[in-house]
């Protein structure tokens, strides 16, 4: 079955600095990749998704992610973060393998933007 790894459980960064949140997934014949954001006491919101085409995907709030098939990665980046970006970020993958189609979330990365 599909699995998703987010190596960093917490990432502190200063305001206006760049940030990269890492995501790796288990290989599959074909995958679709997603990033969600969860603000405190709220549900998840879809930030961006990769289905096909250009490997660089732009999302809301200035975030972007790059799909790298050879490294089975889908890292999330933002060139300059704001205090309001403090939240938990989840990578997710939808793929088809020997067990069928499934959708799996990673464990999450908590981004803390410091003044």
């Amino acid at each position, binding site marked *: 079955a599909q699995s*998703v790894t987010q190596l960093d*459980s917490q990432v502190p960064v200063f305001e206006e600095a760049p940030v990269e949140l890492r995501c790796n997934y288990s290989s599959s014949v074909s995958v*679709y990749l*997603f990033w969600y954001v969860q603000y405190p*006491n*709220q*549900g*998840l*919101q*879809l930030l961006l*998704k990769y*289905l096909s085409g250009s490997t660089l995907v732009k999302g809301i709030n200035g975030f972007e992610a790059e799909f790298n098939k050879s490294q089975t990665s889908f890292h999330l980046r933002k060139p300059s973060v704001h205090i309001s970006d403090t939240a938990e970020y*989840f990578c*997710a993958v*939808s793929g088809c393998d020997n067990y069928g189609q499934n*959708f799996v*979330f*990673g*464990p*999450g990365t908590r981004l803390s933007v410091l003044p």
Partner: protein
Amino acid sequence: DAGITQSPRHKVTETGTPVTLRCHQTENHRYMYWYRQDPGHGLRLIHYSYGVKDTDKGEVSDGYSVSRSKTEDFLLTLESATSSQTSVYFCAISDPGGLQPQHFGDGTRLSIL
């Protein structure tokens, strides 16, 4: 914002009692999901529904049942709650073309003492 309402938003109950959580949507979406969120695990799928009276199990379905008698409502029931079911529960919806849950409710924080 997508119209998804979860009730109750908070609940504290005792081990062995039955608990029902409700998810109500106003989007007329076909797919509805129940997830639980626990530290270090992300969100894990409990059950999902692909239509009225059409449901299937997810990754962590043991101890849970669901029902969907109307398009807009998806109920999650813990027949006999256990402390391991203390968690935050999220409902999500997606339309027929969606590959993934698209809109989430604000969650129900459930504590089993």
